[in-house]
Every structure is written in C-alpha cells, then in structure tokens.
C-alpha cells in the first residue's frame, strides 16, 4: 500500500535557512518576478504573490522555475490572488 502525499498541483514550495549574516530562501514554481531591487523582491506564483523585503537582496534563477534569494531578509509577505 503506497502512501499518498499531499503535493500541491502547482509544485510550489518554500524553504528558508540561515546563511552567513542573513538568510537563504528557496522557492519553487515561480511564474515571474514583478519587482527586483536590492531592498525588495516580488515574486509571482500560481496562487498569489510573495513579497520579500530586506537589504542586499540577490536573486538566482535555477532550472524548473526555481528561485533563490540570499540577503538580509527582514520581512516575507504573502498575498493570495489569481494571476
């Protein structure tokens, strides 16, 4: 009997950990980036928007629509809305 796991249909995930003086935040299934600056990054996913603010933010893009944000993250906000 196989266990059924609850996987979001969009493939969205988010993980955050400490990295140096700041944090490293990884996100999956990012559709687009609507705002990009060292102080503020706004990501668009299937379910809504993710707003990350802080200082010295840097963004890396990976295959499979993965995104990694590194920097001194001070606040992460979520907004539910269809794209």
């Amino acid at each position, binding site marked *: 009997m196989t266990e059924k796991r609850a996987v979001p249909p969009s493939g969205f995930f988010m993980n955050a950990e400490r990295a140096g003086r700041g944090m490293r935040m990884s996100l999956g299934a990012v559709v687009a*980036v609507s705002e990009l*600056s060292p102080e503020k990054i706004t990501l668009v996913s299937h379910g809504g928007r993710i707003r990350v603010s802080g200082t010295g933010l840097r963004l890396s*893009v990976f295959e499979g629509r993965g995104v990694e944000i590194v920097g001194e993250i001070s606040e992460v906000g979520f907004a539910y809305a269809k794209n």
Partner: protein
Amino acid sequence: MPRIDGLIFGYTVFSVEEKDAPSLVNALLRLGINASVKRDFTCEVRPRDGARLRRELRGKIDFTETEILGLPGFIYRNRHCYGTFLGILLGVFIFVWCSGAVWDVRIFDESFYGEETLCALSELGLYSGARWGQIDKDALEAELLLSSDDISWVNVNRRGTVAYVTLGKKNSFEKEDDGLTYSNVVASEDAVIEEINVRSGYAVVKAGDAVKKGDVLISGIIPGELGGGFVRAEGSIVGRVYGKVSATALESREEKVYVSSENVGVSYKILGFSINILKNSRNLDGMCDIIEYKSQLTLFGRYRLPLERCVKTRLSYNVKERSLGKDEMVKTAAGELLEQFLNKTADAEVISVRTDGAFTDGGYTMYSEYTVLKNIGREIPISVSEEKERFVPDG
C-alpha cells in the same frame, strides 16, 4: 567573481537597467537558464545560453552583452599572439618536465647518517635530478636491503617531487660470522689486567696479572682436564695501560703566505645537469691551493632544492720561514700533544694524566704520561691440522 566552470568553459555577462531587471529574470525563468542576478543587475551565463537569452531579450528591453570571457575568450582574443601561446606551452612543458624529476631525497632515521645512505641511494639511481620514470621503487628497496647489512627494512615513498626514504635499523645481537673457526684472544699492548669476562675459551690470565703485547689472554685450546678440544675464544679484557705522548715545537717553521686569489671555475648544477659558466685552466707559476665553495638553494633553510652553485678559487701562496715566540711554541706544542693524546685515548677511559714541558736548544718539548682503561683483547685465528691433531698459530 565568476564561477570556476565559467572561467574554464567561458561565459558572457548581460547587464540591464534596474527597471528592466524583472524582465531579465523572467526571461531566465522562461528559458530555464541557471544564473545569478547581482546587485548591479548583471548576470553571467554560458555562451550557448547567452545566444538564447539574446534572442529572447532582443527588441523587448535594452541590454548590453560582453564578448566571451574566461579561457575560451582569452584564447580567441589572443589567437594571433603566437609568442604568448609558445610561452604558455613552454611553461607547461617545463612544469611537466620538472615534476617528473626527483627534487630532494629525505631520509627518516636519525641512526643512519645522511651522506652514506645518500651515496648508497645515489648509486642505485635515486638522487636529486633523477627521473621518476626510471626509478623502480620495489627494485630499489630490494637492492638497498641487499647492499647493506645494517638495514632491516626500507620504504621509498614519493610525495610530489620529493622522495621520502624510511629505514629500519637491524638489531644484531649475534657476532657476525667472519669465517673464523678457532681463535685465541691476545693482548694488543702491554697492560695490567683489570677485568676479564670470558664468553668462550679458557682464561689464561686473571685480574692483576701484568701482560705484554702478544700474550695469550683467552685460549681457544681447552685443556684436557676440562674436556679438551678447540673453540673460538671470545670475551672482553679490560687492562690498565700506561702510555706517553710527546710533541715538539721548533723555533722556526715554514708557513704558507697567500699572495693572490682568482676564480678559476663557476658552475651551476640544475637537476643533475652541470653547466660551466667560467672555466679558467691556465697554469700559474708557484704553488697554489684550490678551494671549492658549494652552495645549494634551500626552501626555508631546510629543504634542499636541486640547484647548486660551485665556485672554484685558486689561492696562490709562497712558503716562508717564520720564527716563533715562546708563547707560540708552547701553544703549538700543546695543540699537537692534545691531538696525539686524543688519538691514543679515543676508545679508552682516562684515569690519570701528567703533563710537563721544557725548552730545549731547538724549541719546546711537551709530553704527557697517562693511564687509561681500555679493551686490550685482540682475536688471532689458529688453524688446526686435523690429520695430526696439532694446532699451528697463524702468522
């Protein structure tokens, strides 16, 4: 700082204005290109991904793109600089060639003094400048073990370009078999016996006996009442030996007076190859000494590198007779006397020394009378005639 794979396989840098940064990131997301957008809104991508990104961004946003950077870009930009590539190839060749040579031989065992072992290794082909490809470590270890009786095991390791030789000393508790079958132990000089220890044979003398040079101390012939027969006499005999040494310093002596010096040869030895820079072989009248100065390049003063400089200097001299003062005569005689005394008592324990001296017509004579304890036994072989059952002392 570009990534190491970017440096090797090449990369291009795209840069955009701040307002166009989201468009750049969205294009990277759509194309599935791995890239990091820096704070100055630039990103490094591989040349193949750069072409796709260029097509995607063309006409949509303003961007700038650099030419290919990294090693491929360097080669492309300098494709007509043949000297640069020749220099790089030469550098790589020298690096590879030097890494194939032995730069130093280091021995790990304090009981083996460097020079002898280094000479033995050098004869077997392991020396500074030898090629690693021509050295068979297993054969070298086997030959070194066979060539030396003092080594119980040997291990030759290569770390980089340095050969590390580890040696194990053989612990020999038995006397070496030198082919002797029967022998006597006789006195090597006149002495009074202080102590006698017999391992095999029959003791002829006892402590307190006065013996002369050549007297038998331990006999290899066992008396009939003790069973008879012949053995190899072995043991240690400590005797009290009296001796005298003297030295005379004359009023005048010949001395060298150096008049000129001249460099007659300068050579460099690099990885076993000798290069002569200067060689002056013309003959000069008069007497001379040739002094050879060797200096080797080391790393931190410890690790020898295979670069050696040898300077030969010719010191011309004249011989002149010089008269000595009284102090000088005493000092010269004392120096010679000390040298003789140390030679005579090198393997002995000194009990007493009495030194005196006097001025004579020709100079100053100094003498020392000494008493020492030393091993005075010397083994002399004896040959036995089996037919007649009689022994004949050798010599």
